[in-house]
Structures are given as structure tokens and as C-alpha cells.
């Protein structure tokens, strides 16, 4: 069976079913959930089946439909499947045009899957851009007050990056006279590496995002509906890191080594800047958005260090951030549904009124600050340890970032969960069963990865070693 094609086609079929079924009495959300769960089951099956080695697939002879599932893609594919289902649950009560909302969500899942599974440069680019359209409409139609501005900004920033990436991909296609991606990609001639590297990096670094290119992120994350924020922070940012590892590093190892200090600097700057900005926020969702900048800074730093363990740490960091950020955005969304505000100053003492919500929020904040035993810890620790090799004392700055992370997360918990409960929130209902069900898989994943990071590290191990070898041999 062409399982990889089915993984991409299934959510798309779901999107069509939801879209067509909009006029039928059946509920769009139930259909969407069924498809998302089926996708999750299929991904789980493939994760086990893949134990025998990477899966590849090809449709037709001259076309661009080449797919591969290997250790680099699998953790992110699994993450996408989980978050796809969580996002459907998170938007269970959406009122405005629910069929359109769920159809776009499923289409988005399909496009992201295609990005991670593509083994062809043209297909990769097509999928990369295809992600933009559902996200644009999710933010623009279902978002909050400034949604139109945020949607446009999101689209233009990422489109600008990916347009330059397209030129880089075209140069690559000509240099290797074909659009197939081998694993790892063969290095380009040394003369063209620098140009191609920076063109590709333009697309990836905007998406991650690194420091000067990050300004679309707070707007988009804050204005997006909850499901949109979950997919945006949980999965879309990972496309950038994945692209660096999948394409930029192996295609241009020389240029990558030359650029590594710059990347590391950008990563460190992102860690500290994101944390400081998070500390200064008065809007809870914006705080979570800036914490994303900080956490993705660790991923960029780990990629720049690029030892086998650091690449593993980057992958671990991406999966962990995917789970933690999704959980935080889910919780903020649930709170907003009840209070219609995100202003930290208006909250307080919520644990008394919403014990379940408060408990999960505290748990998520602890995961975000990197508490040992939860998923944030191993990735960031490994990054700092590996980074100490090439960058030595500079690693004090990411360590400072961890301290700041503790500061803004605990600040948020203290202001929101503790203290006196304002009168206006005295009748808020606590989380229902469905809302807990949405949070449960994320929390379980956070604990599992924290206790047993090998879950990701073992899968990515062979690929990390291979990539590090490519870089060493350059």
C-alpha cells in the first residue's frame, strides 16, 4: 500500500468530506475528528512499521511525487498527527462557519505532512507554499481583533522567505540536474554553496523564526484562533528547522560551517531576546508567543552546533516545543473562551475557581521552563552541553535564557493562578471532559519525552550521525 501517499491524501479527503458535507445535517467537527484520529492511527502504525528502515514511495515515472519517511521526518510527522487531532478538539465549539474551519485545518495537516515527507525539491516547495493558504484563511477569518493585519503579515513574511528559497531550490535543481532529494542530499559544488545556502536559509530562518525576522510571529500567534496557534507554533515553526537539517546542511556543508557562528549567534540572541520580551508582556497569549521565539532559539543553536548529539537535541527541542507550546496555546484559548480577555492583570487566583485548568497550566509552565523530568529539559541541556565545545563561555547566555524562562513562566503562574480571585471570574466553569481530552495527549507526551528522551533520540540517531558526518567530511 502507498502508505505515505495515504498519509497526505487522508486529511485532504477529510477536508473535502467536511467541505461537501457542510450542507448535510452531520456535524463537521465529528467528521473532522474521525479523519484526524484515523490519520493518527495510521501514523502510529507507520512509526512501528518503519522499524525496518526508511520508507520511500514514488508515483508515476517522470513526476515529482517522491516521498520518504526517515528518522528526521518521523518525529515531526508524528507530532503533526497528534497536533492535528488536538487542534480539531480545541476548536470543537467554533461557531463561525465550522465546516470551513475544519476543512482548512485538515488541508493544513495534509500540506504539512507533505512538507515532511517530500523527497523531491519541487514537491517540497509546493507543499511548503500550500501550507500558507489554509493558515492565511484560518488567521484571517477566525482570528481575533487584528486578524486581517496579522494574516497579511504572516503571509508576506513567509512568502518573501520562501520565494528566495525557491531561487535556491532552482539553483540546486540545475546543479544536480534533477529535483530528486537523496538522503542525505549530495553536496553542491563548493562555488555555489554560499549563495544557495543563504537563499535556502532565507526561507527557513523566517519560518523558525530567528531574531530580526521574527516580527510576524507574535502578531500571527496572538491573532490566530486557538487551533491555528496550536498548528502554527506546534508544527509550522518546525518546518524551518526541518528544512535546515534536511536541505541547507547537507546541500551546502561548506557554507553551513562558515555560517555556523552566525546561526549560533542568531539562536542565542533569540533565546535571550524572546525570554526578555516574554517577561515584559501583559497579554498572556503574547507571552506564550515570545516564549516560542526563545525556545526555537535553542533549536537554531543546536542546529548550528551540529554534532550528532546536538542534531538530536534540535529534533528533541522541536518535538518538545511542539507539545508544550500547543498545550500552552490550548490552555490560553480555553481561558479566553471563558473570559474573553487575555490580559494577565485581570486574572488571579484561578486555581481556586478552575482547579483542573490551573493544574494543567502550572504543569505546562513547568514544562516550558525546562523542569527536569519534563520534555523541555533534555533538549536544552544537551544543546548547552554540546555548544560548550565550540562556543565555550558564550553558553552562559542560553543558560541565562533558561533562568529567564523560569522567571516569565513562574510570573505567569503566580499572576494567573494565585492571589485573590477577581469577582468577575467567580462563576467560570472548569475544564470539561472534552477539553481535558485535548490536553491529555500533549501532557502525556511532555512527560514521556522528559523521562525517556530516547523516544526521539533513538529515531533520529542514525540521521544525526549521517548529517554530522557530511559536515565533518566537507
Amino acid at each position: 500500500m502507498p502508505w505515505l501517499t495515504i498519509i497526505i491524501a487522508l486529511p485532504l479527503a477529510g477536508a473535502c468530506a467536511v467541505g461537501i458535507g457542510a450542507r448535510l445535517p452531520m456535524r463537521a467537527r465529528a467528521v473532522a475528528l474521525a479523519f484526524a484520529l484515523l490519520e493518527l492511527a495510521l501514523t502510529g502504525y507507520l512509526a512501528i512499521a518503519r522499524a525496518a528502515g526508511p520508507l520511500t514511495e514514488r508515483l508515476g515515472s517522470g513526476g515529482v511525487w517522491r516521498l520518504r519517511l526517515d528518522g528526521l521526518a518521523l518525529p515531526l510527522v508524528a507530532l503533526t498527527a497528534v497536533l492535528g487531532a488536538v487542534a480539531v478538539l480545541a476548536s470543537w465549539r467554533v461557531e463561525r462557519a465550522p465546516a470551513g474551519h475544519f476543512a482548512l485545518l485538515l488541508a493544513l495537516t495534509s500540506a504539512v505532512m507533505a512538507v515532511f515527507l517530500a523527497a523531491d525539491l519541487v514537491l517540497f516547495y509546493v507543499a511548503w507554499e500550500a501550507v500558507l493558504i489554509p493558515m492565511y484563511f484560518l488567521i484571517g477569518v477566525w482570528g481575533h481583533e487584528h486578524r486581517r493585519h496579522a494574516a497579511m503579515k504572516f503571509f508576506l513574511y513567509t512568502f518573501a522567505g520562501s520565494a528566495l528559497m525557491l531561487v535556491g531550490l532552482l539553483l540546486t535543481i540545475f546543479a544536480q540536474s534533477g529535483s530528486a532529494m537523496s538522503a542525505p542530499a549530495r553536496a553542491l559544488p563548493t562555488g555555489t554553496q554560499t549563495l544557495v545556502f543563504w537563499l535556502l536559509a532565507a526561507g527557513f530562518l523566517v519560518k523558525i523564526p530567528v531574531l530580526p525576522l521574527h516580527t510576524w510571529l507574535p502578531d500571527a500567534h496572538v491573532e490566530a484562533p486557538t487551533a491555528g496557534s496550536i498548528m502554527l507554533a506546534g508544527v509550522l515553526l518546525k518546518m524551518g528547522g526541518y528544512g535546515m537539517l534536511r536541505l541547507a546542511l547537507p546541500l551546502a556543508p561548506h557554507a553551513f560551517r562558515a555560517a555556523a557562528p552566525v546561526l549560533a549567534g542568531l539562536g542565542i540572541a533569540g533565546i535571550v531576546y524572546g525570554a526578555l520580551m516574554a517577561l515584559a508582556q501583559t497579554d498572556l497569549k503574547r507571552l506564550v508567543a515570545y516564549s516560542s521565539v526563545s525556545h526555537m532559539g535553542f533549536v537554531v543553536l543546536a542546529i548550528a552546533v551540529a554534532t550528532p548529539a546536538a542534531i538530536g537535541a534540535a529534533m528533541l527541542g522541536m518535538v518538545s516545543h511542539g507539545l508544550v507550546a500547543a498545550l500552552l496555546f490550548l490552555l490560553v484559548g480555553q481561558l479566553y473562551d471563558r473570559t474573553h480577555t487575555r490580559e494577565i492583570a485581570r486574572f488571579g487566583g484561578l486555581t481556586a475557581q478552575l482547579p483542573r485548568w490551573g493544574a494543567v497550566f502550572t504543569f505546562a509552565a513547568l514544562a516550558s521552563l525546562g523542569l527536569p523530568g519534563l520534555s523541555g529539559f533534555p533538549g536544552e541541556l544537551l544543546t548547552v552541553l554540546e555548544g560548550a565545545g565550540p562556543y565555550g563561555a558564550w553558553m552562559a547566555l542560553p543558560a541565562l535564557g533558561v533562568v529567564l524562562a523560569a522567571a516569565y513562566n513562574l510570573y505567569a503562574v503566580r499572576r494567573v493562578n494565585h492571589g485573590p480571585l477577581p469577582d468577575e471570574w467567580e462563576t467560570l466553569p472548569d475544564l470539561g471532559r472534552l477539553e481535558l481530552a485535548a490536553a491529555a495527549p500533549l501532557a502525556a507526551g511532555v512527560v514521556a519525552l522528559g523521562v525517556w528522551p530516547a523516544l526521539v533520540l533513538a529515531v533520529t540517531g542514525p540521521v544525526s550521525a549521517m548529517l554530522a558526518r557530511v559536515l565533518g567530511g566537507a
Partner: protein
Amino acid sequence: MLSLKEWLLLAPLLLSLAGALAGLVADAFLSPRTATRSAAVALAAAAGLFAYTAFSRAAVVGGVVLLGGVYAAVGAFVCALAALTLAAGESSLGSRPHGGQVAALVAFTTTASVVLLGAFDLTVFVVALELIALGGYALVASARTARAYEAAMKYFVQGAVATGLLVYGVAVLFGLSGGALGFDALGRALAAGAGKPAATVALVLMLSAVAFKLGAFPFHSWAPDAYETAPPSVAAFLASVPKVAALLATVLLLVGVFGGAPSQREPVWALLVAIIAAASIAFGNLAALRQESFRRMLAYSGIAQVGYALTGMSAGSRVQPFAVLVFGVFYALAAAGAFLAAEAVGEGEEWDGRIASLAGLGRRRPVLAASLAVCLLSLTGIPLTAGFWGKLLVFASASTTVLWLAIVGVVGSVVSFGYYGGVLRAVYLDETAEAPEPAPARVEEIPEGSPALAARSVGAMAADVPSERRRATWPVAVVAILVLVGGVAPLFFLRLFGG
């Protein structure tokens, strides 16, 4: 005398010409509606016949024009597109006096376009180009408003200058080649090095003339007025069919005549075309960003689109006519769809033509809005639409030789989402209740003869959509489906055009 096979290749061309004549006669003796219908049917039949002859090998008919093969495939495409624009404009053309003459002109101009795209002789090239221009002047004026007459006059005066340049260029070439005007003979004479400086003069003259016809910077100034004032379905035709023909003819001219011997270094025109391309992209995009009128925005963006097409041509000796052709075809499709959407929304009747007034269209006319969205995304070059593959091919062919131009092109594409996305935003994201007041300056630009429009958005209108507007929706939907098919399964299209 032509052989039977040559007659067969010529037959669809004669059929579209017959459609034009039928339109004229029907307009005179029957009704404008019948005239429009008969011209549309004849064009559709010509498209079918072209599609049939596309399976035979391309051949030079009568020593002057290429027909069959890929030329017939493109012929089928332009005839079908022209038929679609007539179908969309059927009710508006059919309800005005002598609207059938407009349909006849469309069929005439389509015929000239097919001749132009296969022109293999300088005389045929010039005559076909001028026939298109003549048809164009009349079509722009066909709205019969003061603004339309002004736009047509502007178009005509500038076009006359371009014609002068063109004829002068032809005269120089005629002298250089010792009297030969076939592309073959001309190419051989120039490659042999006949009169280098004079050949360059001829090149610049002809390139300027062609750039005018394409609406490339700095010969673009007629385009916005023309595309804004012509009836929407006619504008859809003008922005698509003649453009494809002129693009393909330009490539054939540059490669066939000025290509030079393969051993020589890059031809002179490569740099010239690259500069025109970059200037068109920069100017068209920046100017389009400032527009409030939907069709004026499309017109300025069309200048940028011509720039992308020229980007594909500027690869010099490594130019791939195929890339330009695919880009041109996919551009024409999406541009026609966007202009036809203006017809279907009801410009001049229910809609004042401003982008902001499209607010609420997504709710009120979901099929039309989705079709328009597909066309606009295709014009932006977003994957999964046909426009992406066109841009991919032209930028790819440029990135091997003129990388800077490819980068200008992709940056231009990003900017273009600023205005194409602006329409999407109005259609889907804007609330209808807060339709803004129109700027006073724009009010005067509403075509005369149309009832004064209250400044309100399309979505705010409570009444049912008139049935003739509903009927004008299907051509847009057909275009959108083609754009999507081209985006998802490009190989099917690419093989059609000889990939």
C-alpha cells in the same frame, strides 16, 4: 497552391474568421444577442478543430505562417478563451445596441492573434500585429463612454508611434537581408553578420514596438485606462488572447531572427530584454499596490506579469520558448478569469468597481468568490495553481544566466500578494457593514452611462443576485477549474504544449 493538408491546418483559422463575419451579419439583421452567441459558438468550434489539428506536426503554411502541432494547441487555447469571454459577456453585450459588432471584433482579433503566434514572415508578423491593434482600439472604445473614447484615443496615438517604429525596423531588416522577409532567410542573413550596427538598430526598434503591444515598461501607459474602461468581458479578452500571441511571436522573432549563430556569444537583446523585464516588474508591482479600482490594479499587475514573461526570454541563447509559452498561457487563463469575475459581480450595475466594495462577496456568491480567489492565487504564483508552474519555468530559465533578474522576479511576486491578497482580504475577511466611503476623486471615474452607484459593498446588497450575473459565473468557474487542474497536474498541460 496550398495542398490539402495545408488547407486542413488552415481550416480552424477560417472557421474563427467565419465566426466574426457571422457575428457582423447577425448583428445587422438579427439581434446583438444572436450575434454574440454565433461568434462564441464559431470560436468554440474553431477551438475544437484546432485541438484536432494539434495532433498533426507543425508546418509552415504558404511559407509564411506556422500552423498545426503546438501552434494549433495554443490556437485552440486562445479560441476557447475568446469563446469563454463572449459567453460571460453574452448578456451585457447582447443587451446593448450593436453589441454583436463587439463580438465580431473579438472573433476577428482572435483570428489575427492565431496568425501572429505562428508568424514566420515579417510581413505577416506586422500585418497580424496591426490587425490586433486595430481590433484593440475599437474594442477599448466599445464601452461608448467619454472615458472609453479617451482611453482608445490614447491607445491609438501611442500605438501609431509603435507602428512607425515597427515598420522602420522592418525596413532596416528588409535592406539588410537583401529583400528577404521570411524568418529563415532573415536569421541566416543576420547570423552571417550582415550589417551589425544596423541590425542592432532594427532590433531596438522592433523590441520597442513589441514592448508597446505587450504593455511592458516604459511603453505601458495605455494599458491601465484601456483595461479599466473597456467592458469587463472585453477587457478579459484583451488582457489574455492578444498577449499570449504577442509573447509567443516575440520569442520566435528574437530567437528565429536575432538569435545569431549558435557559436556566438550572448545576443544583444538578452540584456535589453532583461532591463525591460526588471523595470516592468518593479513599476507594475509598485503601481498596482496603490490602486483602489479592481481592474486598474489588474492592469498594472499585468505590466509586472509581462515582466515575468520577459524574464523567461532574457536567458539569451539558452532561452526556452516553452517556458515563456507556458507562463503566457497560464497567465492569460488566470487574468481572463479575474476580469471575467468583474463582469460576473456586475461592474457598473451592482458594483462600483472598487476593491473595497467587494467586501462580503465570499458570503453572497461563494462559487464566484472561490473562483476569483483561485485566479488571484494563480496570478501570485502560489503552488497548486497553474500560475506557479509558469513562474517556476520562467524563473528557472532565468536563474541559470541572469540570477539577479530571477531574484527581482520572486521579490516582485511577493509584493504582488500585497494587492492580489488585498482583493482576497476584501472578499473573505472584511466585514460588509463597514464599507468605507469612496474617495471623491474616484467617483468621477465611474463609467458614465451607468446608474450612479451608492457607495456600498457588494455583500451589503440585500436583493437577490440578478439572473444574468448568475449566468456569467460559470465561465469564471470553468477558468478556475482549469487553473486548478493545471496546478495539480501540470504534466498534462505541459505535454499538450509540447513539453
